[in-house]
């Protein structure tokens, strides 16, 4: 597995290949680490690799998994973990100079422990936007064009899976931070139902919204990662019906198609047509509370980000001064948000959740399809989104379509649905009912069987 264009097999292929003896965990993990190392100078997906430990774990898997039926669902599968999540023995620096002296974590976060219990091998920590508060993820860059951002804040995990340095990356999503980089690099990502996956051991951005979930190259691999996170030891189903007969999908209009690039609108409409061809019933819907749901998420997010760093701001000024000035501003200003506004957002959230539930009930929906981003990945040296006369900061524009679903707390699957004329990936998101995540995986899997967007490999980071 050297000196060729690298392509990591799927999770299903890895686990069955190890058991059959046709694939070697040591060779696969070696190649994944090499992919990460080769990409590091230009794409910077990783903060830290644990090559020696990962290879020792792969050797152990090689001894125990071959010919065994007792293997875990992620047996020998290489994964990376966003650097706001604790991995035992490594510091959790959160992408911040203010945590350069962070101690090594004494224990894995429960999400990491769940993956390890399923047999996953952590090859390292991936780049995060500082404290997960943003969408640019410096210094990571986009493997489709290294002059562009990978999205964020889980940008390093997105790049790592896109280039085959890991089968699954752990990310977090507070205002879109799994879905945004998934869209920007052509990966698949999943924001679980709020509260369904433990966020213990993850540095908080906004605890009322924070979720932890997987990014990967396909719905199959994302589902494998999600099942392990929620303690479901079953393998991803291989015998689903290929059609979507009986599934009803809403195509989100109004707010979700306003100030969105035409190439993105066309790709999402094409995705809706593909779902129709697969047997789904697709109906246009306009959720009247979309903009207010975004406002609700914004207020919760900004207030709690201030609170999360209040002690550092007040008690450790030198440490606080090491944070990015933009984040400092967000913390200082966040601490001045009137408590009445924060409480209003907390109160309104229940109303918005019920409003979304009524939309699904009234329209008899199983899922709601919408663009993930209003535009493709933007240039790193000009982090603004321009659509017509509109100019928005990346942080506002990129979360505009994602954050409403953080307010409602429902599960959302993000996946690639095309490319723009410049060859940059376009993503869509599919929101579902809390606790009924499997419908989203069924729809996404059927779509990916019928299309090849998720199989396309970026030109940078995969040829070494």
């Amino acid at each position, binding site marked *: 597995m050297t000196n060729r264009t690298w392509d990591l097999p799927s999770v299903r292929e890895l686990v069955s290949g190890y058991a059959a003896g046709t694939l070697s965990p040591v060779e696969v993990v070696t190649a994944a680490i090499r992919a990460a190392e080769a990409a590091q100078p230009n794409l910077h997906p990783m903060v830290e690799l644990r090559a020696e430990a990962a290879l020792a774990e792969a050797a152990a898997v090689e001894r125990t998994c071959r010919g065994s039926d007792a293997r875990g669902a992620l047996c020998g599968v290489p994964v990376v973990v966003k650097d706001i999540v604790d991995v035992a023995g490594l510091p959790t620096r959160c992408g911040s100079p203010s945590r350069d002296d962070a101690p090594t974590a004494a224990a894995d976060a429960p999400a990491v422990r769940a993956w390890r219990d399923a047999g996953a091998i952590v090859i390292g920590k991936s780049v995060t936007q500082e404290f997960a508060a943003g969408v640019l993820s410096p210094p990571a860059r986009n493997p489709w064009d290294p002059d562009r951002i990978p999205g964020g804040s889980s940008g390093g995990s997105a790049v790592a899976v896109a280039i085959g340095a890991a089968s699954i990356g752990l990310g977090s999503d507070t205002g879109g931070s799994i879905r945004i980089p998934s869209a920007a690099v052509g990966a698949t990502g999943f924001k679980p139902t709020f*509260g369904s996956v433990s966020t213990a051991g993850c540095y908080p951005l906004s605890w009322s919204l924070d979720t932890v979930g997987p990014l990967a190259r396909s719905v199959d691999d994302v589902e494998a990662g999600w099942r392990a996170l929620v303690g479901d030891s079953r393998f991803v189903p291989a015998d689903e019906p290929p059609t979507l007969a009986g599934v009803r999908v809403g195509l989100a209009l109004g707010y979700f198609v306003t100030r969105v690039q035409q190439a993105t609108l066309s790709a999402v409409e094409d995705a809706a047509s593909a779902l129709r061809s697969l047997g789904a019933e697709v109906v246009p819907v306009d959720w009247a509370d979309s903009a207010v749901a975004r406002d*609700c998420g914004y207020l919760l997010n900004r207030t709690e980000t201030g609170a999360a760093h209040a002690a550092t701001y007040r008690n450790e000024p030198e440490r606080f001064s090491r944070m990015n*000035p933009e984040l400092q501003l967000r913390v200082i*200003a966040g601490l001045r948000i009137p408590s009445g506004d924060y409480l209003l957002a*907390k*109160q309104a959230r*229940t109303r918005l959740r019920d409003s*979304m*539930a009524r939309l699904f009930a009234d329209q008899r929906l199983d899922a709601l399809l919408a663009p993930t981003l209003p535009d493709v990945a933007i240039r790193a040296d000009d982090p603004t989104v321009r659509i017509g006369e509109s100019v928005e900061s990346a942080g506002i524009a990129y979360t505009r379509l994602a954050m409403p679903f953080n307010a409602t707390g429902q599960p959302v699957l993000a996946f690639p649905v095309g490319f723009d004329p410049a060859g940059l990936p376009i993503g869509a998101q599919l929101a579902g009912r809390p606790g009924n995540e499997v419908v989203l995986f069924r729809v996404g899997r059927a779509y990916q069987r019928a299309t090849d967007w998720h199989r396309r490999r970026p030109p940078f980071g995969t040829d070494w």
Partner: protein
Amino acid sequence: MTDQPDQNELNERIAEFLEGVEAAAARLRTLPDVPLVPEEPFDPSWPERDA
């Protein structure tokens, strides 16, 4: 230590930030039937009638 913003610029940007917050809060106040007491913690599951 990172570059520190000028105090005047900082104040301007804080004011701009808080204007955005107030605008968002004003839109939230237009929602009807907002419960008086928020759920703590928030439960994302949907009411039985809509599930």
